């Protein structure tokens, strides 16, 4: 699942460590999220959206898998 997490974070000049600390996760998790290697749980996705004051769909982009 693609996301705009890195883009939004950099626009607001927030460090990965600060974002990780605010969300209660490790910096490696933020890094993996931004690289698309890890998809967050619904709970973490809500926390991220709430942190930035945005809707989940504005941050995470769900694309149908091509069969």
């Amino acid at each position, binding site marked *: 699942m693609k996301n705009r997490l890195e883009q939004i974070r950099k626009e607001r000049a927030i460090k990965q460590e600060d974002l990780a*600390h605010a969300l209660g*996760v*490790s910096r490696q998790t933020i890094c993996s999220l931004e690289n698309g290697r890890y998809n*967050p*749980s619904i*709970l*973490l996705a809500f926390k991220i959206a709430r942190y930035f004051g945005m809707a989940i769909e504005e941050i995470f982009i769900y694309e149908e898998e091509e069969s």
Partner: protein
Amino acid sequence: MKNPLCVFKRSRAFTVVLIALGAVLFLGGILLVLLERSDRYTMFYGFLTGLGLCWLVIGCIRHWRIKRNPAIVLEEEIDQKDERHQAIRSRAGYYTFLLWFVLLFVSIIALVFLSYKTASLVLCGVLVLMAVTFLLFYALLQKRM
């Protein structure tokens, strides 16, 4: 995340318990070795002594690290509760279980061919226990999740 003070107190309690248990095992093991007249259980007592010493040393090192930098406790708490780390641990545990299952099976076949009946039977029992335990946990978690 939980109150940092609670996390710190819990971590300190764990360190104290680790040091105390380590000391008890270490001293108890040495005492048992000295009191034991025969060599029957010396290896077991030695194992207890070594285990106690390990725990004692690890507890002391942990205590020193936390004293030097208390923030480590909070970092450990975050790493423990981090959902990605939990997913990694869970998957690693499952792959390890599968690998050990296959290795045990291969070992049983090898032991049967080498005519080690008792050993192969024991490993068979372990294999069955592993399978049953896995199925039980799977059934339990299916109900809860």
